[in-house]
């Protein structure tokens, strides 16, 4: 993106916003366009996950017993802990957005770093759960060898489980990179009341990651 080196520091303590792209008339219009673009992208993400949720409901309809058995073999404690982690990281991202919008770049930096570490914590817990599944043989498709699920359809549950959580974990990684990137820009005091769209958009992406998990958590772990 634009290098901050050439931009001057304003008296309020943040850098001047980058020059407006030549085809926009006002900075507000540009910010609104960036936000709108992000929301459209989030719409595509919703439909990306639609397919895997659809798979969940289809196979749950075919194999209700094994889906219930398999849910009982997932650790509710770890799942709930992960849910709370993501919710809290969403809060810190929202607070970071609020701070960046008011030019408090340092506060925003620390809040974003807190979110990134919570994301890392989420992945750590996920890794623990995955390891356990690998040891049990609770694996998708032809790798399935988990003796405790007696009802038919166990392999399919674990396809849904690994594919949905795996795709979600990939989004967590991408979200963490985005948050780190805007955190660095916060450290350089780039954001101000007129220019904070990158924080907002990275935050929106992170919230979406949270939204997906809000649905995955009860469907996989609880019911």
């Amino acid at each position, binding site marked *: 993106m634009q290098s901050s080196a050439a931009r001057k520091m304003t008296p309020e303590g943040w850098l001047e916003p980058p020059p407006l792209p*030549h085809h926009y008339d006002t900075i507000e219009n540009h910010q609104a366009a960036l936000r709108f673009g992000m929301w459209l992208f989030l719409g595509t993400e919703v*439909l990306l996950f639609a*397919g895997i949720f659809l798979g969940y409901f289809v196979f749950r309809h075919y*194999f209700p017993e094994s889906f219930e058995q398999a849910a009982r073999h997932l650790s509710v404690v770890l799942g709930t802990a992960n849910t709370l982690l993501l919710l809290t990281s969403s809060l810190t991202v929202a607070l970071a957005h609020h701070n960046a919008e008011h030019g408090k770049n340092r506060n925003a930096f620390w809040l974003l770093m807190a979110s990134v570490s919570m994301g890392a914590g989420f992945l750590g817990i996920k890794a623990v759960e995955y390891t356990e599944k690998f040891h049990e043989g609770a694996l*998708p*498709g*032809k*790798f399935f060898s988990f003796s405790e699920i007696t009802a038919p359809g166990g*392999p*399919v549950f674990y396809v849904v489980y690994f594919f949905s959580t795996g795709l979600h974990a990939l989004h967590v990684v991408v979200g963490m990179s985005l948050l780190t990137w805007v955190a660095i820009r916060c450290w350089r005091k780039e954001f101000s009341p007129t220019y904070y769209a990158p924080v907002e958009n990275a935050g929106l992406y992170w919230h979406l990651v949270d939204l997906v998990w809000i649905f995955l958590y009860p469907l996989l772990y609880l019911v």
Partner: protein
Amino acid sequence: MTAPITTAGVPPAGAVFPKKSYLNDGTTIRSWLLTHDHKRIALLYLVAVLIALFLGGVFAMVIRLELLTPGPTIVEALTYNRMFTLHGLIMIFMFMIPAIPAVFGNFFLPIMLGAKDVAFPKWNLTSWYVYIAGSTLMLWGLITGGADTGWTFYTPYSTTTTTNITPVMLGVFIIGFSSILTGLNFIVTIHTLRAPGVTWFRMPLFVWAVYATSIIQVLATPVLGLTTLLVAAEHTFGFGFFDPARGGDPILFQHLFWFYSHPAVYIMVLPAMGVISEVICAVARKNIFGYKMIAMSSLGIAFVGFFAWGHHLFTSGQSAFDAGAFAAISMLVGVFTAIKVFNWVGTLYKGAIAFTAPFAYICGFLFFLVFGGMTGVALATVSLDVHWQDTYFVVAHFHFIMVGAVIMGFLAALHYWFPKMFGRKYPENWGLLAAGLIVLGFNATFIPQFLLGNAGMPRRYYEYPERFAALNVASTAGASLLAFGFIIIAIYLAISLKYGEVAGRNPWGSRGYEWDVPSPPPTENFDAVPVFTRGPHEYQDVPEELAKVGHAI
């Protein structure tokens, strides 16, 4: 304030080629490959899709030559399977989906809105690179892996075939990203960068069509992305999501696949419809008939078209309830399409028609769309589809829509906008000759296929009984005519690029906004923010001298 908007110029005698334009603003290869100018990106796309069209055409000719005789003709059976897979994938993902939106949409959408560029120029360039990367990966996978699944990748064959389809699936996934980026860019551009005076109902109809297309691209493509990932994972790791032997559901694959791939038909055909709406009033020199109906029916097709996908599953084991529901919804697409066709015909009625190459393509388009659409309604009838499923009837039907209508729209756009894009005219007589050859060639290629399909010849078969030979020969002969037409076009357009007569600002005397900027346009499109004081298709107040410019070229 410059005045370009209110003066729709008459081609001045001996128009001069503008000294500065987007074409010569930087001449190095680097200045093209790193450009953020929407017009240059459009040309990058044009080069890429023309290469794709050429490749897809070559493979189509191999298929037709193979089917010239009942037995083996020029290739082996397995090669034949690979050829139709290559043909389908290249034509759909590399040519037809980006063809009109990414080339003409990129070039003209900002100009038609009075904007200097699309909303996110960097992402626009990124989308081209993503498209190239995805296409390369897909082609590499197809050629080295030898995928023989057809472009539909039906499971469980695609997940159990010994050919390596994983790079192909990932290539399709990546091309999907490019399509999403283009659509997203256009939607944001239309919402945020309209110049003063361009209200929603003063947008050119091409913009409306591209808008509807972009909505489909943004909403449907992610589902295809997930499906390709699932198939690749299943093929690589043996997941069994779509494999009945492991408790999976192959029909679920078809649902997910057609949730994208049926709307994808409208990604291809809606922009072509937009082109026709633009060109038809320029050649008829009349106001467009039923502007709002055409604009709204684009959105109607985009919405209804989403929920018609199940008509591909009538014989796949889908439930009778769903089959009935999808059949009924599919018929609705016909209603919206008919609205457009009647409005176009109403526009032509009592118009001062200039019989030019774009008009010839409009005639071809209307014929192919109506014929292809009617057979589509017939195919959406469950009981008839049981008879026609997977026969050449289906092949002929979707080629009438996707090749007939879309290629007509593409060629109409290419001829109509060629003077604007390159500042030079093409030779009209050659244009008409080629258009005639192509329309004739299409009919000769695909009408026999309707008959073959109705007589029971299945699609994708390598050999066929003796009694189908005559019609297959006719079809192959038609395809050769078609190829000949394309070669003529390629030759005269290539010559016109350099030696064509200078076009001037508005050789057609069109009232479209894009004709009010110089040809070829300058890099910034407009010197100042333009103000539009009239609608884009208004011919009632055309100055008298302009009204005479019937034969523009």
